[in-house]
């Protein structure tokens, strides 16, 4: 048994090493995607063209505008004299954001009363909108605390949001308002899932295509030995991939590593093994490598859109929500964000661990059963 299992694993490693192009792609793919998306998000969201209609024209209003400029999210390109001009600039797409000060802004502030600055955001681009609302809201908070520290009302810079979003919670864990920080842990999980599924499904399907699977099945190698022999080397590759991507995120995007790295690696094991089980399951229903590739995208797309990598689950319709909570990535994403961004410990994550373990057991068992040791 030992000889068979070790032989199987050694063979897998040699094969991975021989196919260095694929190995390299697997290892550096997450870094590559993180790099592209991370930088794209940084540049896209900042420097939004902004129209200002300042009816107050006081040092107080100029101070708040200054805060907007300093955030780098807003370029105060247009100073206009009417509300209509603001809406026209936004409708035509020249401005993405409009800031409107009421005439009594400074007066109300001096009287320590609640005042409103209206921020209009072009919500047709949800990424831009989210970012603008986040930024404006944070500036508003900072601004109001500075000006009226006695007032505990946080609504000085009240936004009229075109989309109802709980922006404060998000800004709380992302005080620098860098979207990359928020999106990178999510992407890391999604790409990890994608590469892990593809890699193992291809490894099994290739054996079937070349006829070597037949030789394995006719040998005394047991079903579980075959599975473990395939899974273990791939777990190590997945860890290497994850480590590279994390290091990259920390160095280039200043991703904070607030929680325990050990805990993150420990919990990742459950996600990776479950995902590998799914990859093997996939290999039992596909006949060729091409089919396996296509099927893996079929899984990847709903996972990335429904798990909350890009859009929050809270805003989804009930059916999508139900699906979202069946996807392992959803739980892993919360683990990643929880540990990396919030620094939370196992006491907050044990339910996630249980769910991932349960999904993993189901997937692995199904794939062992489905993995016909007999060629039917």
């Amino acid at each position, binding site marked *: 048994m030992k000889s068979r299992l070790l*032989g199987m694993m*050694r063979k897998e490693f040699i*094969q991975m090493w021989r196919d260095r192009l694929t190995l390299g792609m697997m290892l550096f793919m997450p870094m590559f995607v993180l790099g592209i998306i991370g930088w794209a998000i940084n540049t896209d969201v900042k420097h939004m063209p902004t129209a200002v209609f300042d009816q107050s024209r006081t040092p107080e209003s100029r101070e708040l505008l200054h805060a907007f400029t300093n955030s780098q999210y807003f370029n105060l390109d247009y100073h206009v004299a009417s509300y209509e001009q603001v809406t026209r600039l936004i409708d035509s797409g020249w401005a993405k954001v409009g800031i409107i000060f009421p005439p009594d802004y400074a007066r109300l502030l001096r009287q320590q009363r609640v005042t409103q600055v209206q921020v209009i955001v072009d919500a047709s681009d949800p990424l831009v909108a989210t970012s603008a609302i986040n930024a404006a809201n944070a500036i508003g908070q900072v601004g109001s605390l500075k000006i009226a520290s006695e007032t505990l009302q946080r609504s000085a810079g009240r936004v009229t949001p075109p989309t109802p979003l709980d922006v404060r919670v998000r800004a709380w864990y992302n005080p620098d308002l860098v979207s990359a920080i928020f999106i990178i842990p999510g992407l890391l999980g999604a790409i990890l899932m994608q590469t892990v599924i593809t890699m193992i499904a291809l490894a099994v399907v290739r054996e079937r295509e*070349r006829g070597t699977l037949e030789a394995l099945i006719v040998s005394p190698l047991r079903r579980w030995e075959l599975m473990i022999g395939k899974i273990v080397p791939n777990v190590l590759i997945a860890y290497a991939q994850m480590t590279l991507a994390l290091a990259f995120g920390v160095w280039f995007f200043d991703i904070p590593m607030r929680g325990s790295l050990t805990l993150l690696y420990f919990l990742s094991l459950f996600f990776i093994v479950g995902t590998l089980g799914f990859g093997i399951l996939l290999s039992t229903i596909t006949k060729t490598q091409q089919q396996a590739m296509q099927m893996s995208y079929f899984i990847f797309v709903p996972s990335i859109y429904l798990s909350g990598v890009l859009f929050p689950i809270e805003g989804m319709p009930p059916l999508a929500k139900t699906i979202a909570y069946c996807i392992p990535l959803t739980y892993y994403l919360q683990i990643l964000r929880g540990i990396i961004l919030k620094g939370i410990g196992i006491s907050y994550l044990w339910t996630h661990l249980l769910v991932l373990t349960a999904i993993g057991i189901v997937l692995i068992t199904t794939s062992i059963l489905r993995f016909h040791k007999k060629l039917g």
Partner: protein
Amino acid sequence: MAEFDLDSYAVITEGLTRRFGKIVAVDHVDLRIKRGEIYGFLGPNGAGKSTTIRMLCGLLDPTEGTGYVLGHDITTEPERIKEKIGYMSQRFSLYEDLTVWENLDFYASLYSVPNGVKRARIEQMIQMADLTGREGELAAHLSGGWKQRLALGCSIIHKPELLFLDEPTAGVDPVSRRNFWDLIYRLSEEGITIVATTHYMDEAEHCDSLGFIYQGRITAHGSREEIKANALKGQVIEIECQPMREATIFLETLPGVAEVVRFGNTIHVVIEEDGPLPTDVEARLTGEGLKVNRIEATIPSIEDIFVSFVGLVDRRSLRAQLRRMREGGL
């Protein structure tokens, strides 16, 4: 199964059947393969050879019937069987991205060859396959004959008692095919039972015993001598004559003629027992105004013999299948 001496037979099956949906791939096959012999399992593609072998190797469950391989029940003890047999398929089952040595080493570990003898065993296989000095080459870079011998080495690295060869010579050049059979003889001399499927009828000459399978049924079986002696009761004559088309049509109507086949520019006529003699046939042809260039009795080939076991209706299509395979080199 008590009436059979499980020790003297490597393979025994009783009514072995496999259905895929409505198709009966293997239809109540009874096999008796003695230990130590070379058994040739012949038949055209799709006749059920590979399906039978796969059931014997534990790759596939039989729908019906029983089978014993090396004394173990194929349905209840497949894992015991797997340790004792070697299997080489026509696809060679080599890892192309592993070297010659790594392939052998991997198969040695799959069959738990003890570390003490592993190295010596691998070297022995390399020598047998004539691959000395090429141990570090990737299997992908080997040509047909070498690949085939390496695959053989991988399948016997654990010294199996019984070796299944599923179309081992398919797609390999004639010289390599001959070399390969020489290797098989050597293995047989060492006492390994060999079961080989093939659709090359001439390869039957290499076997001690033969079984012919057609449409899932065994149509003939026995030792090579038995089959040759008893099988064909009539005789075969070869005729060269002009014009061929008319001659063929006429011969088919002749009483006592079992089969008329054209091979290139000769007509191959299988005569039934008590059928006409070559001289009679010649006289009839000349009487029809046909020009006979050559007519003589020949030794029936293995193919003639096997075809003679198949019902009259099926003979033509079986001949055509065999010819296509011969020409296609499949």
